[in-house]
């Protein structure tokens, strides 16, 4: 198996983007191509979840490859719910590692704000079990609310811990020019003040407004290449070389109710273990991580399941500041889904973009010192299809 490198990255701001979906996918791709100076792409993977449902567009990859004038390169779309982005990176990895292709573009895009918030919530809910969940009105916030309640009772997580995640990630997002939410918040104002109930109303008890990520449009891209290509690019652009050293993917029951222990996210655990094993590193070797905090509780739980902290102790690590920008393992330096935004199909690639930026030392005010190994966890469904990636800077 050949080694696979990230030679180019690009991203749009995550916010509301009033452009055709194919342009949202194409713009970061152009940035990435410009950055690495490569104009020939062997194959294109386009990550997206909702084009056919909310944008009335199918065959998105065909549109994107043509928008980029990259024909006759092969192109196809990858849909794996909110984990589409990392799934597409994993597929791109396999294409290069296998020797089938030398240069693969993985670009993701979503335009969720083309519909109103109710329709967007319903669209995302279609990833739930159609007969056991969706028909009963289950939405992702409602699943997350029940999950959070159980987790609180079992492990002592409190609303204050959840608010601390939100505050940390909003603070990080303030340092990221591409983030959706540039809005400082405080624990006192969203939890303690007489106005807290109005500032931060319940969405799905115990989850409140600031426990939920925004609905975002956005696109992100990485270009993956073989070692020979990466070395050639590095000679030209003088950027540190970043290698995609580990990939892992695992699944869990479609309906959450069928899990033996609903507070265990076994797919997260399994995907992370695979990725770390392949990369030959331990969780404690990771310097910076992007976890899938679509809801604040998920950052805490994923930080345990991937092995950064013991089960049930993620919130204690948060209390100690271990996950802050200057902590032992900074989590969601980009602002995470909570602050940077969550254009579902592009999210996993956005996470990779942040990690590569960190490993290159290009993250400006949110730069983690001496970051050499980075990790991403892209959480599909309600933990039923998860992809984890490990990246390493090669000095």
């Amino acid at each position, binding site marked *: 198996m050949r080694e696979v490198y990230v030679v180019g990255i690009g991203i749009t701001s995550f916010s509301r983007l009033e452009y055709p979906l194919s342009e949202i996918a194409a713009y970061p791709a152009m940035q990435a191509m410009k950055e690495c100076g490569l104009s020939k792409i062997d194959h294109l993977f386009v990550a997206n979840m909702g084009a056919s449902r909310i944008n009335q567009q199918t065959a998105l990859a065909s549109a994107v490859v043509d928008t980029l004038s990259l024909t006759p390169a092969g192109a196809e779309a990858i849909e794996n719910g909110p984990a589409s982005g990392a799934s597409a990176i994993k597929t791109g990895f396999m294409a290069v590692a296998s020797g089938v292709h030398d240069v693969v573009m993985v670009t993701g895009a979503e335009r969720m704000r083309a519909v109103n918030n109710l329709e967007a919530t319903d669209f995302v809910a279609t990833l739930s079990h159609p007969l056991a969940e969706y028909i009963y009105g289950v939405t992702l916030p409602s699943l997350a609310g029940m999950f959070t309640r159980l987790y609180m009772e079992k492990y002592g997580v409190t609303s204050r811990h959840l608010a601390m995640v939100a505050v940390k990630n909003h603070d990080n997002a303030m340092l990221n*020019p591409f983030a959706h939410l540039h809005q*400082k918040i*405080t624990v006192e104002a969203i939890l303690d003040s007489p*106005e807290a109930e109005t500032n931060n109303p319940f969405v799905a008890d115990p989850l409140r407004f600031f426990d939920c990520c925004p609905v975002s449009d956005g696109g992100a891209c990485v270009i993956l290449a073989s070692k020979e290509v990466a070395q050639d690019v590095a000679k030209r652009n003088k950027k540190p070389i970043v290698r995609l050293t580990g990939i892992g993917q695992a699944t869990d029951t479609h309906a959450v109710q069928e899990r033996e222990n609903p507070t265990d996210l076994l797919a997260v655990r399994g995907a992370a273990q695979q990725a770390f094993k392949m990369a030959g590193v331990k969780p404690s070797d990771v310097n910076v991580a992007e976890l899938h905090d679509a809801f604040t509780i998920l950052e805490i739980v994923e930080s345990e399941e991937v092995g950064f902290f013991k089960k049930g102790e993620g919130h204690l690590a948060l209390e100690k500041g271990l996950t802050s920008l200057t902590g032992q393992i900074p989590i969601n330096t980009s602002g995470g889904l909570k602050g940077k935004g969550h254009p579902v199909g592009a999210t996993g690639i956005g996470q990779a973009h942040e990690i590569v930026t960190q490993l290159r030392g290009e993250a400006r005010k949110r730069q983690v010192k001496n970051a050499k190994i980075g990790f991403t966890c892209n959480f599909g469904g309600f933990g039923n299809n998860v992809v984890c990636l490990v990246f390493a800077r090669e000095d």
Partner: protein
Amino acid sequence: MAIELETILRPVDHPVPPFPPKYMQVASGEMMVVRQIDREEVPELLPHVEPLLHVERDYYDIVSARVYAELLAYYRHRVQDEYVLVAQIDGELAAIVNGRFLNADVGVSYHTLALRRGLRVGAHAFAAKMEYHIDIVKQKEVLIVAESPIGFRRWMIEYQLEKRFEVAHELGGVPSWALTKEIFDKARETLVVGRRPVPEALLKKAQAAILPPSSPPKPPQDLLAATRAMNDPTGTSLMLQRWKQEGKV
């Protein structure tokens, strides 16, 4: 002659009790003061509203143009029984809400213009406006319309307003919705906040000057920027545009 004509053109306002100022903490942790202004302060507001006429996003252009006209009409006595409330954070203008009293029982909501986003300042200011009509002036109902989808979600859906479609609203002649005292009572616990009295220092700071918003709503990114970026050798036009808007380059 000119003076006589002015007395005909200038409506006479009915006496109503003033809105007692209140304050609240917003999600950023800052304290926001909501207070009534009189005509003399209107010239301070206008320069902060005018730039929004050029923000073609979330109906800021239409709403701010109408608010500008309503403020001017209030200042120059060309509207009857209008009032204006402002919300300020650290002196900075965060929101403007206004309306008028149609008669003793019925109020008309004009506009809610939020100049800071993401903190529910518009929602807080709107609630204060309804409080003025229902609790302070003791009106039975307020006629409301929304010009933007955001307004529709905030008012018609969150408050569950009643349809009053047989009544054409003063804004555009469109069918009205109504907030009654009963609806307002139901909303009090979750949507209406504020503490009184406002600490003296906080109130004085607000009254001293209406400062321009430090982070006002911005125009949307150029709709053609992405297309142009196709031929942009730097490939960064969108990113640069955003950074420029935010003063980061």
